């Protein structure tokens, strides 16, 4: 009976293949079963979007999706870049401080000593640059670039509104 069932299933399968000659040759797996509805949704989306008549709808939709994906990840990439910069400048600052401490070990921290801390003007300049960058990067990371940008835009629009009112 089992053998007959197997034969019957095979015959049914063959008849379905014969009925649908364009059927995909890809093996049905768990992954393809998940992906097939998503692929159909992308195709439906490309037909639903109001593209101009002379634009290829599928290619345009795929490019749009790729652009959305990249744009969505851009703020995170910028945030990471800023954090990395803070890390980099902090490390450099620490290195310079250690160098300075080694060079002037045991000196009193008076005003005069503070003045003489950096006999090498180039190193002093580098230290100041580093410190400024660390502080600025920290500030920017805390507030967040996007917030700052939105604030800037908001302030600009409020200024424009003020000018228009006056």
């Amino acid at each position: 009976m089992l053998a007959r069932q197997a034969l019957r299933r095979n015959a049914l399968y063959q008849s379905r293949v014969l009925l649908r000659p364009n059927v995909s040759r890809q093996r049905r797996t768990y992954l393809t079963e998940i992906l097939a509805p998503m692929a159909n949704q992308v195709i439906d989306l490309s037909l639903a979007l109001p593209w101009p008549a002379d634009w290829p709808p599928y290619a345009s939709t795929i490019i749009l999706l790729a652009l959305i994906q990249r744009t969505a990840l851009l703020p995170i990439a910028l945030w990471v870049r800023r954090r990395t910069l803070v890390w980099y400048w902090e490390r450099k600052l620490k290195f310079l401080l250690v160098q300075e401490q080694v060079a002037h070990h045991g000196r009193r921290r008076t005003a005069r000593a503070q003045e003489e801390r950096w006999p090498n003007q180039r190193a002093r300049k580098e230290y100041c640059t580093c410190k400024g960058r660390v502080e600025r990067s920290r500030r920017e990371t805390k507030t967040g670039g996007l917030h700052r940008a939105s604030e800037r835009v908001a302030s600009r629009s409020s200024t424009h509104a003020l000018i228009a009112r006056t």
Partner: protein
Amino acid sequence: MRNTLFIPVALNLATFIPMSLIMLAIAMPPTPLDSEAFLTLTALTHPDPSNILPVVIGIMNFANVDSHRWLMPPVRREEVRQREEAAASAAAATGKPENRLQIKPAAMWGFGMRFLSVARIVFAMYMPGVRLLCLPGL
């Protein structure tokens, strides 16, 4: 802090892999993408017959790798230049080329990424057009 560096890579992969799989699923026959041509692609389900798009993608990847150096902050660039000069002067002071193996991670990374961007052209030549449209800018 070092772990933060992997966040963009992980996020990119987490979105890129599903998107690539969906694009491959779209390209499986029967599909309406067979009937659509775009730029040099005769159909979105077939590889580019003229190989122009794969080469363009390779160039964009190459530029992406090298733009890291172009977009470097001036202070950092100056630092790299000073380090390279110091290494060159140290080599010149000894008067003979060093025999010991020098491991330079930055140079190795750069070479690897450039090699991959060239190798990618070969892969892109055999990819369906749908996948090519998602690749630029990665």
